[in-house]
């Protein structure tokens, strides 16, 4: 139990390198430390982009006792390689079993659970309400309105969307939404699993929709040179009116000076009325490496993280500003969190996806997101891009 006396070293690796999340996690670890003063906790924060490349190394070489990662397919390679500890025992625990039931699926591979989630967050369109108001625009309900709004914004000399695709995954978000709205959640998942040809007409349709936006000039120029953070100032400065992003973008936007009067959120609108709405809600997780030294402490820490109080605390608007995974926790009284929670629980009948680079296999994700980026810059290359992706699919999922 969490009250047992814990001692020894506890090495924690975090990828929460942005200032706000970093502080949140450090504070949480501080609280855990208070409870277990004999424990010598050592925290290492690694840049989020770098973390993704380094996890493979440290899991095999000098594993910490606890490490952050992502749910679903994204953890499969490490599970398959036996590098993550099976923590099904934790999930037997009544408290976790009940309160975390909704995310159990995302943590399960081969019928076992390999970690615990600590936060998840909605994706959606964050926009400058003041600009919308200035132009007399409403949150769009469907594709036509979406495009009409965009046209109005463009006419006012702004761009509709900011985005920074240097690290590719942001384009994946756009693809997720366009494809889920065009072809539905199941098709999207099939595509992620490599079961559908990239040259399929339905995929083409998604890209056609996307192309409409691109051709309008909806996105900021030169997005391929920016990281997602570097794209923020466009929105802050009012050069772009909206950002399709995860909820973690709210903190830096607020930090940059946008008030809640200026900033608002809407669900990505319907495109194909025949398919049900589905959402991206990536889940961030904690794992115990199989070679961890202090698994007892690690288990205690995982339990601590998912406890209702901690979940409430770390996910509140001042901190991560995201959604708690524990059903007993309360969602902070933050309009984005509330809206998001609402959206995910009631307005996502199609299903909830993790994210493109977590749902698709790593290699496919890489190749395809590169294709998305290219497409966003050179929409005319579509045929070439799709052919390339198809070749990659056949190689990767052979």
């Amino acid at each position: 139990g969490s009250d047992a006396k814990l001692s020894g070293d506890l090495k924690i690796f975090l990828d929460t390198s942005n200032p706000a999340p970093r502080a949140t996690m450090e504070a949480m670890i501080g609280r855990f430390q208070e409870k277990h003063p004999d424990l010598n906790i050592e925290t290492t924060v690694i840049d989020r982009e770098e973390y993704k490349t380094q996890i493979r190394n440290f899991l095999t070489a000098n594993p910490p006792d606890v490490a952050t990662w992502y749910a679903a397919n994204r953890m499969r390679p490490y599970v398959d390689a036996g590098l993550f500890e099976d923590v099904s025992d934790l999930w037997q625990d009544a408290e976790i079993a009940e309160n975390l039931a909704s995310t159990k699926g995302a943590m399960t591979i081969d019928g076992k659970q390999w970690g615990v989630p600590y936060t998840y967050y909605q994706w959606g369109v964050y926009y400058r309400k003041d600009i919308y108001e200035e132009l007399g625009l409403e949150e769009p309900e469907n594709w036509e309105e979406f495009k009409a709004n965009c046209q109005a914004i463009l006419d006012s000399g702004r761009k509709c969307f900011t985005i920074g695709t240097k690290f590719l995954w942001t384009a994946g978000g756009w693809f997720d939404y366009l494809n889920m709205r065009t072809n539905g959640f199941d098709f999207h998942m099939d595509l992620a699993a490599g079961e559908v040809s990239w040259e399929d007409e339905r995929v083409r349709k998604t890209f056609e929709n996307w192309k409409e936006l691109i051709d309008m000039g909806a996105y900021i120029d030169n997005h391929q040179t920016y990281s997602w953070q570097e794209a923020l100032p466009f929105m802050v400065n009012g050069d772009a009116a909206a950002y399709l992003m995860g909820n973690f973008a709210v903190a830096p936007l607020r930090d940059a000076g946008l008030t809640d009067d200026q900033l608002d959120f809407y669900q990505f609108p319907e495109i194909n009325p025949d398919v049900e709405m589905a959402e991206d809600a990536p889940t961030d997780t904690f794992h115990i490496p199989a070679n961890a030294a202090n698994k007892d402490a690690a288990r205690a820490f995982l339990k601590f993280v998912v406890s209702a109080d901690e979940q409430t605390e770390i996910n509140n608007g001042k901190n991560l500003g995201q959604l708690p995974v524990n059903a007993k926790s309360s969602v902070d009284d933050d309009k984005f969190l509330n809206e998001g929670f609402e959206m995910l629980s009631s307005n996502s009948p199609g299903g909830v996806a993790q994210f493109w680079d977590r749902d698709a296999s790593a290699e496919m994700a890489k190749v395809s997101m590169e294709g998305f980026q290219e497409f966003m810059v050179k929409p005319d290359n579509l045929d070439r891009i799709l052919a390339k992706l198809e070749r990659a699919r056949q190689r990767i999922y052979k």
Partner: protein
Amino acid sequence: MFPKPIERAPRAWQLTYQGLLPVALIAWLLPLIAVAIFSIKPDSDFTTGNYWGWPSTFEGINNYRRVFFESDMPRYLLNSVLITVPTVIGAVALSSMTGFALGVYRFRANLWIFFMFVAGNFVPFQILMVPVRDLTLDLGLYNTKTGLVLFHIAFQTGFCTLFMRNFIRALPFELVEAARVEGVAEWRIFWFIILPLMKPALAALSVLIFTFIWNDYFWAVVLTQGAESQPVTAGITSFNAQYRAAYHLMSAGSIVAALPPVLMFFLMQRHFIAGLTLGATKG
């Protein structure tokens, strides 16, 4: 001397030349000057779009303070020192011995062993990446400064051997023979005669290797992670990730990272250049 010495040219051209020098220098170093200026600007200059103008206020001290006290930079710097210095010592020590062996003795395999060092030295080091990473993992040295140091020593030994051997070859061989006639044991010849004469080469190589290792990024990324063992080149990237778009801090951080080799260069200029030219000469 070519081109014709300027002092023989007409006065007008002399003046033009003297004037042209600083202009050319500024143009040449423009990117660096920009970074230096960035590093003393306040944050607000970037939000207001005053990228290339005069700093509105001088925030140098503040910016550098933040680099030193609010980030892991000092740790990274220390790591760099702890990686670079042992590497320099190790590589120079090993290669002065291999250089001695290859430069002084005639034996059949001599040239081939020498070529092995040279060839290995020119190998695109990416080919070593996967095996060396595995090796380091197997040795339990992944993400340790030791692992990085060991590899650097081994790899630099190739270059240093090339350098040392050529240097020793250029020493008069009679010195060795004279000592042999006098009954001096081989290791004493190395220690009392060759090593003292190699001082300039040792200095030049040390400076050179120092810069190479200090500036290494690739192996730092492949063999280490995190602030406990990564050198400053890798540190600067995560520093920059942390302060993305905070150009003033990124600049200050970059300058801090770049300073030691620059200082080294200025202090040991003569040796440094000797190293560059001596080392690769022969051909």
